């Protein structure tokens, strides 16, 4: 089962950790809204398949860096369509 986790909360929030604790190795993670600051948090080990909304990154003056793939809202739709399951944290 291909699972897409969407999280919109800053990595400081317990919910962010709750998302990662439910994350299986091959799952995908999409950072939206305040969650995109995770791309700049040094101590955080993000999963291999990690995406972030470009509009939210740009809003906060961030670039995706090496570990995160920047996508637009159409890309977000594609991810949700391809996933067997979407969990919105």
């Amino acid at each position, binding site marked *: 089962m291909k699972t897409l986790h*969407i999280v*919109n*909360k*800053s990595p400081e*929030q317990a*919910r962010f950790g709750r998302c990662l604790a439910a994350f299986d190795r091959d799952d995908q993670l999409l950072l*939206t*809204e*305040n969650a995109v600051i995770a791309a700049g948090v040094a101590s955080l080990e993000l999963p291999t398949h990690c995406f972030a*909304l470009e*509009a939210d990154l740009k809003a906060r003056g961030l670039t995706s860096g090496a570990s995160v793939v920047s996508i*637009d*809202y*159409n890309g*977000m*739709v*594609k991810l*949700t*369509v391809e996933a067997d399951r*979407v969990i*919105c*944290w």
Partner: protein
Amino acid sequence: MTSPTSLAFTLVITGAPYSSQAPQTALSFAQAVIAEGHSIDRVFLYGDGVHLASALSTPPSDETNWSLAWAEFLIEHGIPGVACIASALRRGVLNSEEQQRYERSAANLVTPYQLLGLGEWVESIASTSKTLYFHGEH
């Protein structure tokens, strides 16, 4: 209209405008759903999300009016908008029927939303429609 590989979505919005980013993210996503050739079965407002259905929201003129922007989008695409009646009544979002029933001084539900129960959401869960949630940041 839609291609054989097109999907139907249900969007549940639980974050309020001017308090969370949820209505904006959800609208950008909804526009992309249409642009990608998919469809939206229903938009369901729940919890604080019901404030999006307020006709009285009056942001400064240089800020987006999210209630208006969402209402226009729903009407343009003929998408049913539902505000959970239990969430809405507690938070002071009423249509004229509920206004009369509870003898309140005004109604403030924006067109085209309907006030209905959680059964509407259950229907989406039970259907083949893909359900996504747009929450506040807490």
